[in-house]
């Protein structure tokens, strides 16, 4: 599903965010990307949804080489990928419903289809009763669940999450993790960037560790 070959990303002259990373992630995997802040987690994810292009190396997603993708193709790549951020990136002026519907409308889906899928997606994250609220009226955990609903409503092949629980407390984090697990169980490949090792203890999965842009560890979970 995701393949990286000798990928290097440099910003400007000297600062190197990712150094010569090669890795493969198969379809349906659940992978943590660990590392201290500044290790290159965010840059790695940004390259996967083509917000950045690698300076060197090749990236393949769903067998499509995106290292030299043309900007006109990027929207179609992103339709296969759901992204969740630490700061949710919701539209404060829109209702919960509109925030989730946004992703489908952007892909040009029909209206009746949109309303059906949005309701379904919100039900999965347990917020179907908050349709007409504005994000700021909700708690951080609820906002993140809306963001997850928005990422999942398009049935993505891949879900990328960048410190999704960074702003949330323990209990809420567990809820969020459960949502990711559910999505993963339905076949979505999940990549979760975090510096929080405790997540891995509760939900052991493959861990990729980055340090200063280098890949320094790739552990499969210990089979219980």
């Amino acid at each position: 599903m995701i393949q990286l070959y000798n990928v290097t990303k440099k910003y400007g002259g000297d600062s190197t965010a990712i150094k010569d990373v090669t890795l493969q992630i198969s379809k349906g995997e659940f992978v943590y990307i660990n590392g201290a802040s500044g290790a290159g987690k965010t840059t790695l994810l940004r390259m996967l949804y083509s917000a950045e292009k690698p300076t060197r190396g090749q990236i393949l997603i769903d067998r499509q080489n995106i290292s030299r993708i043309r900007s006109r193709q990027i929207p179609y790549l992103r339709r296969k990928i759901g992204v969740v951020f630490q700061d949710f990136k919701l539209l404060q002026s829109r209702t919960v419903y509109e925030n989730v519907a946004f992703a489908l409308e952007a892909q040009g889906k029909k209206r009746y289809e949109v309303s059906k899928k949005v309701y379904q997606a919100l039900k999965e994250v347990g917020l179907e009763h908050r349709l007409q609220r504005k994000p700021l009226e909700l708690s951080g955990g609820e906002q993140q669940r809306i963001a997850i609903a928005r990422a999942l409503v398009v049935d993505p092949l891949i879900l990328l999450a960048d410190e999704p629980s960074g702003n949330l407390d323990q209990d809420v984090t567990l809820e969020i993790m459960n949502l990711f697990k559910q999505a993963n169980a339905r076949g979505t490949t999940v990549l979760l960037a975090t510096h929080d090792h405790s997540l891995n203890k509760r939900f052991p999965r493959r861990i990729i560790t980055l340090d200063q842009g280098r890949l320094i560890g790739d552990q499969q979970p210990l089979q219980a």
Partner: protein
Amino acid sequence: MLDKIRYFILRALRNMRQWPFLCTASILTMAIALATVATFFLVVVNIEQLALRWTQEIQVIAYLNKVPSQNNVAKLKDQLSRISGVETVIYVSQKEALERFKKRLGEDASLLEGVKRDLLPASFELGLFSEYRNQQQIATVIEHLENILDVDDLRYGQKWLERFNDFAKILRFIGIVLGGFLLFAALFIVSNTIKLTLYARRDELEIMALVGATMRFIKIPFMLEGAIQGLLGGLLSLLFLTIFFVFVISRSLTSFWLTPNSFDLLFLTMNQQITLVLSGVVLGVLGSLSSLRRFVRF
């Protein structure tokens, strides 16, 4: 397809409602800019029109030293009308001249009471064919005329009229240059105002790009918004212009320029009005396009 169009229009309208201040600002900017350009246009057009009218009224008036006898008048008339370029010849006797003067004075006509009837000289008024209404042709006409008549004084409003025409030409030139600058400034301001609205909405643009919206999908509502604002700006400028025309231009022009009574000031024709409104739309679309380019990138 219809679903999409509906969606785009709703989006554009909602965006405008969400940022009423910025939206009003760009509409007003466009309206004022367009109205200013159109005002210049109107002033220039009307002054040119006036010049044209005056050119049409050009005639050579020859005031005579001696009053010719009745018989002579007919003969002179005949001779004068044979000068090439002369279209009409009218003889104004001393009596008629006084009558005209009285009429011109209107209520003050009593001033002329007790004045001798031969106060004013008799004159011939020569109307010219339009191709003869210029400096050179008039000079030849006058040459011929002086051979025929014993002229005391000649009047023809040629020199100052040509100067006036030059003035109108300069005015038109200034109008074009200034109008161009104004339109350019308007485009700049509109594009900056739209840039502000885009800046306020950069999150939205970012998220749209993130969830896989195509360039076109992101751009169309903003262009539509630009177009709607341009349309409103254009209509508003037409309103401004009408008000300005009725209360300022027409009053000042009629009092300043001593226009002939029959002279109707020109307003924009229907086509020009439509052009004005459409240029608002174009301005709005161009404005949003130019600023979108900087904001929406993948």
